[in-house]
């Protein structure tokens, strides 16, 4: 209750308004400047992202096509199965390479001389023999017939067809000499050479020959490793978060645990690889380079991420829900598992998916536990030797053959595709379950 004479204003309303108007221009200019900076930052980031994607896709898209050469192969019974008994053991070990070479000689009868013939045979991939073997073993009735088969071309031929070999260079400086190029041109005239979708890339395991190399082994290995990681990290992480958040009393020990968990989230991942090497492989004797030990190492690495995300999700459940449940006579465990956990689950799942996406791209710890080996077989279980996609990329990037350059980029595209899908799934889940109360 002030007396009317005493006022608490510093300025008269008009003077105040003048001051406000005078400052407005500066304020709006500052805001515009800030918005421009923000926009520029976003555009710069997008530019770098575009450069990255364009360079990878530009190098990698050609890997999705593979050159084939059509051969008429006479499946000579005398070569394969002289006794005519169709014994699988005999058929399995017969010399199919000879049949392939025969068909090539027949197509180019003017090629004589040993080194020239070797060059001719080198047009076709070494896998042609294995392809023929598979056909014969599948259906022995084709023995004695002539088959028109498309076999994969050698990787140098593939590179020529894709335009990566410069025809204008001197013959000795190219991977393919003039002879070979002449033969290839003749094949092209006869429509016996072409490109088709590279299914081998997706169905085959690793190989020293680029035209026979595929990512299937790495993808299956990644999948098995991630499965082990998820099975170990998710229950342990969620249970730890629930215990620390709902049951543990707040004292020195729990503070210490929380600090340690936060620190572990920042430890370089290669340290976990060293830990896995020292304890899981050397002490426990788990076979190296298996999805089992890879999953164990990645689980340890992902655990802090899941625990931190789960604790945040649990903290975000309003205390009124807990009070309501306790007030009706629910025990603490019933309150946590029947009320709090279902409401916190979306946040926990999001954190887990992000953790899994991180684990999918991890290379360093897995190199430590031996996944750097050259594995051709598709792993059948968690105790079979395996490799993972990022390690496969690392190994191919080291290989000298030209054809591996495009395959490395293609594998990177596949890996980025998986990561993008996983993160998109996390975003979709978060949106869908937001604010259900």
């Amino acid at each position, binding site marked *: 209750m002030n007396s009317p004479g005493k006022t608490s204003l510093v300025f008269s309303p008009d003077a105040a308004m003048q001051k406000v108007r005078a400052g407005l221009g500066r304020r709006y200019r500052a805001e515009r400047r800030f918005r421009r900076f923000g926009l520029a930052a976003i555009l710069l980031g997008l530019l770098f992202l575009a450069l990255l994607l364009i360079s990878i896709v530009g190098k990698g898209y050609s890997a999705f096509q593979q050159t084939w050469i059509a051969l008429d192969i006479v499946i000579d019974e005398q070569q394969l199965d002289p006794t005519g008994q169709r014994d699988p053991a005999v058929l399995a070990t017969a010399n199919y390479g000879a049949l392939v070479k025969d068909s090539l000689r027949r197509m180019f009868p003017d090629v004589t001389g040993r080194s020239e013939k070797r060059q001719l045979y080198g047009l076709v991939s070494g896998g042609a023999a294995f392809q023929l073997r598979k056909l014969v073993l599948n259906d022995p009735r084709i023995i004695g017939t002539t088959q028109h088969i498309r076999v994969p071309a050698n990787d140098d031929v593939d590179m020529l067809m894709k335009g990566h070999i410069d025809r204008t260079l001197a013959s000795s400086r190219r991977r393919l000499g003039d002879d070979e190029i002449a033969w290839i041109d003749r094949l092209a005239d006869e429509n016996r050479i072409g490109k088709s979708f590279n299914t081998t890339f997706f169905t085959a395991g690793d190989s020293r020959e680029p035209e026979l190399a595929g990512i299937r082994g790495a993808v299956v290995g990644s999948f098995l490793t991630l499965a082990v990681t998820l099975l170990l990290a998710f229950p342990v992480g969620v249970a730890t978060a629930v215990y620390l958040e709902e049951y543990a*009393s707040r004292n020195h020990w729990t503070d210490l645990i929380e600090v340690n968990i936060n620190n572990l989230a920042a430890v370089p991942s290669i340290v976990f690889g060293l830990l896995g090497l020292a304890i899981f492989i050397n002490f426990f004797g788990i076979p190296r380079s298996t999805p089992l030990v890879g999953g164990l190492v990645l689980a340890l690495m992902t655990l802090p991420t899941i625990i931190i995300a789960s604790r945040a999700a649990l903290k975000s459940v309003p205390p009124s829900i*807990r*009070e*309501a449940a306790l*007030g*009706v006579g*629910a025990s603490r465990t019933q309150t946590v598992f029947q*009320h709090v956990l279902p*409401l916190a689950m979306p946040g926990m799942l999001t954190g887990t998916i992000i953790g899994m996406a991180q684990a999918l791209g991890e290379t360093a710890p897995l190199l430590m536990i031996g996944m750097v080996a050259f594995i051709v077989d598709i792993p059948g279980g968690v105790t079979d030797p395996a490799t993972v996609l990022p390690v496969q990329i690392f190994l191919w990037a080291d290989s000298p053959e030209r054809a591996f350059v495009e395959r490395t980029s293609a594998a990177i595209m596949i890996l980025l595709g998986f990561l993008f899908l996983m993160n998109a799934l996390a975003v979709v889940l978060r949106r869908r379950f937001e604010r259900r*109360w």
Partner: protein
Amino acid sequence: MESIMAENETIAGRIRIAGPDTKQTGEDLSQEISETVGEITVSNPRMTCRNVNVYYGDKQAIMDVSLDIGKNQVIAMIGPSGCGKSTFIRCLNRMNDTIDSCRVSGDIMMDGENIYAPGMDVVPLRARVGMVFQKPNPFPKSIFENVAYGARIHGMANHKDELHGIIETSLRKAGLWEEVKDRLDQPGTGLSGGQQQRLCIARAIAISPEVILMDEPCSALDPIATARVEELIDELRERFTIAIVTHSMQQAARVSQRTAYFHLGRLIEVGTTEQIFTNPRHRLTEDYITGRFG
């Protein structure tokens, strides 16, 4: 001061004014409030509290309060903000256990047992002493599930028909049945504020408690919803014992039979509602009721 004195003399009855000044500090207070004024005991108590002290860490929030909660009665706890009435009522069903730094001493007896005895199981206690909170907090589940949850976990219904019966009865008693009977599977959070609070009351009475504690149940509601809830409290009185904390003196006067006045953690005065509001015996009670502070 003089005008207030004159006002007091015109109110019928005897008035004992404990001190000469209207403004007093905390130290003077403890001198004059050595004992609660009025009858803390009742003939038929449901719960009895003796020498209850509550500490939040080093700070003492409730100082030596003794009070009986009468059976099939409504007792209202009034007092200025921060006087400890919510803290006290939360002791009665041990909801203060959820607060880490809170310590309770004293005896709170129900059916001859001290509810703070070391071996006491809190779960059946809370099934017998239910609670309705200030802000309506239905579970983010369907209306049916909200009311059924308590009955389910305490195993009160053996099969579906019994459960449906319990839910219908509770919703009818809470005055909500007609409004929601066609949409029992819709989320409880989709109801209006007043309906949500009545849902929470239905949830509390579905497990047939003996005492219902209400911590300012109408403070988040509009006047019409408030009136409905007050009507409801009056009807529930026949079956349940109710303790209600309220910052509205009009509500306390309308709804309760006994009233307890708290001030800075002490129980100053307790008595029948009519006596407290027309003839308060302690000066502090009278100051609060006449609106001098609070």
